[in-house]
């Protein structure tokens, strides 16, 4: 068991940088999820840690040792791939035994260890089968077993759940978390699915354009994103963004956009940036009767059962999305008033996208 | 010395070393086989015959051999004739192969029988094909017998001794053997057609002909391109059939480039003349190859882009 440290890890392909100076310290036993849209460099980062790709610059440390120049086989890491990468020409037993046989483990020990691991991930009855005959969930477990059996210093996972259907994916999330609790090993998990990141991670690393945008526990990232991108990446339905500008309003700072003006409890000098974007999560948009707030027309309803998503046309470029109680009496075409929870408002610089007024 | 062995192995493992491993012997072989080309150029610039001393003492004659080759009517005619054979055989092979594949693309009773049987000719040694046809085509042979039966009167075509019919026989041999290859390629092209665009076209109300013309045919283009490139390349090399079927005759009427060069070099031992002609031929082929490779690369790139989408 070991932690992983990355120091200025960079991978350039020609002029473009797939990974650009990623530094990260993952203590032993932590479950870290590397998340970002496709092409953000997260898989390349993982491959460099595993030794499958050589970094252009920077170093990888495992358990304090520099391993940058080592072959993958000398790094003792366990890796689960997006396609699972089960060997189609070997039985499940041989698949799980493969890493042990490579290390010339005595046959008796191979058998004992494979059977023990098969028991823990519940694939014992499948040992004689071929991978092609397994269901998605079974194949998933076999891939995990094959990784666990070699007792790696850390686990790397590259979107391992993406081939599963939606329900199984949710089940496997729980199982992976339980596995992490049992093994107490370092997990570095790569995904583009923000829900996987939120539910499983001890800490989330958000990447975009090969650069780490923010590192932190899931709820901190959700509530306190550092920029426009991170704010928009987490949450379903996603955060509402309203483009506008700051202006002074009787000595206080005001945000003005088409159809919406918000006077803030701050002095006018608090901000120099003129153009800005307001961000507010759907659960912080309140529908209300009577006076106050702004009026809007309900243009679309998406009932989900536990809540209902409401699209409000208020005169801006896009609709404001709100989530409301499913029992709320509401119909398309209704004229309603809405307000934002003032203390939950986030503002981003209109040009750089950086958070302002934190 | 396990330590030394381990070190050697781990050196071989490094990507920069490992990836070049197969290139060393292959490039060595290619260099070994490239030297004769230098020799070819040298031989084409001197005047040497196998029967006349050692080649490095032969006198330098400059471009005389090339001038001789261009003025050699027999060479010029062999070139024209070879292209003529290709121009006659390749379209026939493409047409027949495509037509037969079209008839065999859907399931019906007996399909397996036909598709297996039609592949037979391409597996036969070409020299055997040439020889085999020489038996069929003799004046009192089975082909004339069949034709007599079909015509209802005695037919005696002099397939091998008539200069026009001999040409037809050479083209026929090529068509007989290689239609099977075009058939195989097109048939697998049909099998690889993606079903969704065709279903979409049908849903949009396209007729069978329209689907074929505007959906299937464009999708088959890479496969047809490969068949065309492959066959026209091979047709320019025709050697086995004339040698075994007609021996280039009657007269020189079925003498292809390969046959004539063979005669100049071996039968007449005029090696330098043969070398000059070989170089001229090489220039022609290289131009053709550049076009062929361009087509291949374009089609492969398009397919890769399609797959990426």
């Amino acid at each position, binding site marked *: 068991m070991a932690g992983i440290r990355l120091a200025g890890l960079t991978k350039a392909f020609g002029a473009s940088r797939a990974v650009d100076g990623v530094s990260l310290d993952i203590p032993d036993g932590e479950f870290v999820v590397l998340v970002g849209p496709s092409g953000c460099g997260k898989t390349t980062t993982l*491959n460099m840690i595993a030794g*499958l790709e050589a970094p252009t610059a920077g170093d990888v440390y495992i358990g304090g040792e520099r391993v940058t120049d080592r*072959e993958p*086989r000398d790094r003792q890491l366990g*890796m689960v*791939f997006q396609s699972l*990468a089960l*060997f189609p020409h070997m039985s499940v037993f041989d698949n799980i035994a493969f890493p042990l046989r*490579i290390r010339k483990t005595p046959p008796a020990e191979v058998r004992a260890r494979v059977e023990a691991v098969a028991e823990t991930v519940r694939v014992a009855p499948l040992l004689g089968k071929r991978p092609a005959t397994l269901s998605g969930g079974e194949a998933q477990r076999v891939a995990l077993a094959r990784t666990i059996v*070699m007792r790696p210093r850390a686990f790397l996972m590259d979107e391992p759940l993406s081939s599963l259907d939606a329900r199984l994916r949710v089940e496997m999330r729980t199982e992976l978390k339980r596995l992490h609790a049992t093994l107490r090993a370092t997990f570095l998990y790569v995904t583009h699915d923000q829900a996987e990141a939120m539910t499983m991670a001890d800490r989330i690393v958000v990447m975009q354009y090969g650069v780490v945008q923010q590192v932190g526990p899931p709820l901190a990232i959700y509530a306190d994103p550092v920029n426009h991108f991170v704010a928009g990446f987490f949450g379903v339905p996603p955060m509402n963004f309203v483009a506008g500008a700051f202006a002074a309003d009787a000595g206080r700072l005001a945000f003005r956009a088409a159809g919406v003006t918000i006077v803030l409890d701050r002095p006018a000098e608090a901000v120099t940036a003129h153009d800005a974007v307001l961000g507010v999560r759907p659960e912080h948009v309140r529908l209300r009767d009577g006076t106050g707030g702004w009026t809007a027309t309900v243009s679309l309803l998406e009932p989900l059962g536990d809540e209902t998503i409401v699209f409000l046309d208020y005169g801006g470029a896009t609709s404001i999305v709100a989530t409301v109680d499913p029992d709320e009496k509401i119909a398309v075409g209704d004229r309603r008033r809405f307000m934002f929870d003032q203390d939950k408002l986030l503002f981003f610089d209109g040009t750089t996208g950086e958070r302002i007024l934190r | 010395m396990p330590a030394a062995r381990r070190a050697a*192995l781990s050196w071989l*493992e490094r990507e920069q070393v*490992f*990836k*070049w491993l*197969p*290139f060393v012997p*292959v490039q060595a072989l*290619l260099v*070994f*086989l490239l030297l*004769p*080309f230098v*020799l*070819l150029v040298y031989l084409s610039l001197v005047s040497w015959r196998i029967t006349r001393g050692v080649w490095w003492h032969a006198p330098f004659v400059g471009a005389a051999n090339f001038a001789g080759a261009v003025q050699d009517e027999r060479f010029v005619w062999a070139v024209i004739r070879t292209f003529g054979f290709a121009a006659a055989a390749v379209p026939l092979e493409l047409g027949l192969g495509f037509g037969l594949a079209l008839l065999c693309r859907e399931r*019906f009773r007996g399909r397996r029988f036909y598709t297996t*049987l039609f592949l*037979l000719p391409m*597996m*036969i040694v070409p*020299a*055997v094909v040439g020889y*085999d046809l020489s*038996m*069929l085509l*003799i004046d*009192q*042979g089975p082909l004339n*017998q069949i034709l007599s039966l079909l015509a209802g009167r005695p037919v005696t075509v002099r397939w091998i001794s008539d200069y026009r019919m001999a040409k037809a026989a050479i083209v026929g041999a090529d068509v*007989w053997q290689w239609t*099977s290859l075009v058939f*195989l390629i097109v048939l*697998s092209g049909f099998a*690889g057609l993606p079903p969704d665009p065709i279903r979409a076209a049908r849903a949009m109300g396209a007729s069978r002909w329209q689907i074929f013309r505007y959906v299937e045919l464009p999708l088959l283009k890479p496969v047809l391109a*490969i068949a065309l490139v492959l066959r026209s390349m091979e047709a320019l090399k025709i*050697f*086995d059939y004339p*040698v*075994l079927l007609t021996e280039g005759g009657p007269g020189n009427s079925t003498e292809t480039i*390969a046959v004539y*060069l063979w005669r100049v*070099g071996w039968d007449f031992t005029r*090696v330098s003349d043969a070398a000059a002609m070989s170089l001229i*031929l*090489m220039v022609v*082929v290289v131009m053709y*190859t550049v076009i062929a*490779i361009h087509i*291949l690369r374009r089609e*492969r790139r398009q397919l890769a882009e399609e797959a990426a989408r």
Partner: protein
Amino acid sequence: MKRRWLVAFVRHAILLAWTAVTLIPVYWMLNTSFKHSGEWVTWPPHWFPEQPTLENYAQVLTPGSTIFELGRQTLKVLKPLWDSLFTATASALVAVALGSALAYSWARFGTGGKNYPYSVLTIRMLPPIVIAVPFLVYYVSLHLLDTYAGLILVYIATSLPYVIWMMLAFIEDVPSELESAARVMGASRFRVLSSVVLPLTVSGLVATFLFVFILNWSELLLALTLTNTQVSTIPITLNKFQSVNEGRDYGPQAAIGAIATLPVVALGFLIQKHLVKGFSFGLLRK
């Protein structure tokens, strides 16, 4: 209903016609190979041997070497069969080993540049007659003329383009994640090749081997140029027979044709499915 019958009728009529075109030459060769000399040329030709005989096969398969006498010859093919078998097998083995390693290296690392396989292809596009002339001189100087090694070296080179392109199609079918997985689990690159890549491409390797074998088994021109008496493959033997013997020994020749053809046809049908890949240059949709 009527239309469907008509379509089926026309379809089968055309296909049967081509079946006849395909089969008659092959049948005629077998037919002649079982005939006594008196039946080789008759009018009307005999479609069945009246007195079937194995003497043609017996003659060509007796040990000894071909004897050319005035106007007649007795042909023996055991030595040519061995020569063909040996050169075709040896060249196919080496070409498959080198070519598939090269194809792997190119597919995974892009070694040699984007255009490498295309440039190798030019070897195949060059008419063999072009290299025949200088090779004669070259091989005489190197004492490789009329030797197994000389012919095999050239066959390896001319087979490489097909091996590379055919194996590319099979290697590209192996997901590279399988190899990454094996490497992370501790396998060396050589172990990855033997435990993962090799088992997954074995059918391709066999098909490619057989294909190249057939190619070299059938080759005439280069064999004619580079070998003569010490080494003499089946196609050359057939050619010698044809050009020396104006009287035409149809029977024994047909027997040689059958002997040269049948094993190859059998192999060809075995790899029928994979044959397309070899000719497709990666241009087939999956």
